[in-house]
């Protein structure tokens, strides 16, 4: 993904997974702030039901952020982001309602700062443009409600000042989060461009070696049968019935080698190369050659996972990969038998699963002792 819609999560899913801990901490802080300020306000009076309702709605928003940013979930979508904003704005309105008839203005002020903290928590998951738009819209609603409330309550402080104070908590953290998101995305995109240049240089470097190796494989086949046959026939300058039979035979042999090459997918090559000596090969069941229809990003993610699993001594023999087709949808299943009860393996591979979640349409990880099952889907290209 490029441009203003790019997110750190899409560009660096494994790295973003590491910020999940921080996201949880920030959400907990936002929650605690809401609870403490609400408790202080309620101790001075006000409607308990809307105040508790506000806390309840805010808790739902917090739970949503923690869940969708976790390792068990896919990409943090704009819909989820906007839902979080909607919930927090709703909780702010409920909190304002709870203190509407009182002049204690401090009670409904937890929501702007809590929303701001939540926006910092989701900075890795959403693009700057969206953070600014959603944050500004939410801040304006909060500012308008605060302004109206200040006029109704007839506070000592100027209503505009109170509205600005309410807005500033959201805006300061929202714009800061947006800048962080933008700068992180720019850094990752710069790095990707550099990596592309390095990859191109690497390709130039290895191109000749690969070409020679591939050519040598073909020349070996040609030297064995084709060259002596053609040489003999060119010397005689005549075609006999034996030559015709022999030509057919050699053509069939070459064709069968080419078909065998064509029938071996990149995944089978990876599995063969990744296998450990003395252990059974990883089984690949791909009757429709669906591995060949994966994109480069999908191949890379799956390759990394297969290589990591093959090298893991806690993985038992019997590891298999099955690719099946359901219309245009391809479904892949990795069944990984894990030795002992070490299901920390799942967490160990979480960064790769995060990369797979971005590369594939959907990824689900399940543990059916002793197997770890990784299912992924993608559209047939």
């Amino acid at each position: 993904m490029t441009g203003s819609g790019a997110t750190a999560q899409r560009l660096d899913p494994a790295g973003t997974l590491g910020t999940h801990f921080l996201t949880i901490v920030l959400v907990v802080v936002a929650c605690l702030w809401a609870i403490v300020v609400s408790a202080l306000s309620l101790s001075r009076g006000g409607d308990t039901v809307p105040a508790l309702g506000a806390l309840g709605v805010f808790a739902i928003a917090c739970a949503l952020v923690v869940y969708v940013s976790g390792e068990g979930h896919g990409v943090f979508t704009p819909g989820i982001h906007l839902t979080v904003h909607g919930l927090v704005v709703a909780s702010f309105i409920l909190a304002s309602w709870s203190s509407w008839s009182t002049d204690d203005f401090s009670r409904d002020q937890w929501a702007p700062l809590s929303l701001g903290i939540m926006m910092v928590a989701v900075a890795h998951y959403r693009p700057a443009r969206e953070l600014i738009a959603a944050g500004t819209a939410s801040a304006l609603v909060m500012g308008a409600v605060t302004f109206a409330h200040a006029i109704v309550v007839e506070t000592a402080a100027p209503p505009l000042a109170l509205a600005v104070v309410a807005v500033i908590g959201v805006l300061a953290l929202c714009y800061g989060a947006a800048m962080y998101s933008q700068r992180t995305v720019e850094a990752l995109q710069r790095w990707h461009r550099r990596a592309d240049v390095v990859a191109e240089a690497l390709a130039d470097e290895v191109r000749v070696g690969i070409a020679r190796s591939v050519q040598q494989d073909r020349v070996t086949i040609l030297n064995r049968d084709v060259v002596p046959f053609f040489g003999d026939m060119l010397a005689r300058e005549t075609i006999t019935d034996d030559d015709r039979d022999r030509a057919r035979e050699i053509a069939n042999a070459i064709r069968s080698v080419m078909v065998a090459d064509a029938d071996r997918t990149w995944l089978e090559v990876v599995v063969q190369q990744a296998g450990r000596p003395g252990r059974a090969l990883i089984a690949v069941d791909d009757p429709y050659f669906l591995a060949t229809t994966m994109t480069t990003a999908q191949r890379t993610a799956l390759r990394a996972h297969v290589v990591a699993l093959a090298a893991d001594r806690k993985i038992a023999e019997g590891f298999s990969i099955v690719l099946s087709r359901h219309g245009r949808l391809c479904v892949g299943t990795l069944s990984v038998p894990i030795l002992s009860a070490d299901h920390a393996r799942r967490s160990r591979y979480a960064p790769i699963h995060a990369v797979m979640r971005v590369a594939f349409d959907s990824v689900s990880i399940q543990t059916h002792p002793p197997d770890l099952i990784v299912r992924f889907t993608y559209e047939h290209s």
Partner: protein
Amino acid sequence: MSLGLPPHLAPRAVSRSFISAIHVTAVVCLVGAMIVSLAFQLEWPKLIFWPAILALVPLLVVLYLLDRMPTPFFSVSYLIIGGASVYWYSLTFASQIELDSFAALMTLALPKIALMLVGGGGIGAAAALRWATSGFLVAELASFAAIVQTSQQYALDGISIAAYAIMAMLLIGSWIGQRGTRRMQPLLYRAAKEELVAALRHRMELRAAALLHDTVLNHLSVLAESPPGQLSPVLRARIERDLALLVGEEWLTEAPRADASNDTEWHDSDLYRAVREARALGLEVDTTGDTTALLRLEGEKSRELALAVKQCLVNVLTHSGSSDAEVVIYGADDEVLVMVVDTGCGFDADAIGSDRLGLKTSVHQRIEAVGGTVQVWSTAGRGTSIVIRLPVGPASSTRPIASVSAQ
């Protein structure tokens, strides 16, 4: 491919992003504080709040400079000038209103938070935390001095403390997060590198298969179907030439990348223009091989070749599902061979509908009209290679090679 920053770049990038973010937050806090001061001034015109607005102007200026040049000099300047600004700002409010409401406390906290968000020089969480602590202490001391001077009661500012705590948590959390998730990055880098090499090899194998199919297998098929007797001179010449090429030369080892050669003739060629147009459509086109061979094609052939290749590239973009293709140019004594290779979904040539005229009309007929031949080698799910051969010399009604061989 989604690859994260390598360990040697990550801390610097995270620090830069973080500093930019907190500077934006500081600007919003300062502008907010100015608007709040203005609101107070408008509400109570007889009181004096406007000096608070002026107090924040130098802070904004130094913040701008600090963001442009995050050096220790500007960081220290920000703290010194910021301390004076916060003192002036706090003094203005403390001398005009009672500081006992949430709004007043929040108003006073805004520039203090901005001063804490100094960012400063240095890389890493520890450096940022040191600067933040310095900013926090300077702001609190300045505010304390101003409030005490007006004989109001000073109380620790909970809002600023909360902001400081959040910032500290952010810094420590980012640092912990970075440490934990980089362990799989080397594996992902290696996978990306291996994928690149595998794709390159696959493309070479496709080209090799297409060439073998187009030469050796073709000759063997013709021989198998030929009546016993004298070997056709045309077939003999073809076999000799192809054997010399396949066994004697490095037919897969390419000349330097055509685009890198900076060859003006290549850049002026019709084929280059076709490649450029395909790139403009969004296709990644890699061009390799002997571009000087194109010079031996006279005008009409050169133009028709370019149009045919363009059609092939459009087909890759439209039908293959792949976003990249390779154009390889070979030059032999009597002909020029151009191969368009993609690693897309491939197709079954027999299953192409009659409405798909691109390959038939724009490629086959066009090339055959100037005496060349086209061979398509494609397997569903494995990619496609289209081999276009054009004889060197003026256009004539030369029969296609395959037809000659089949006689």
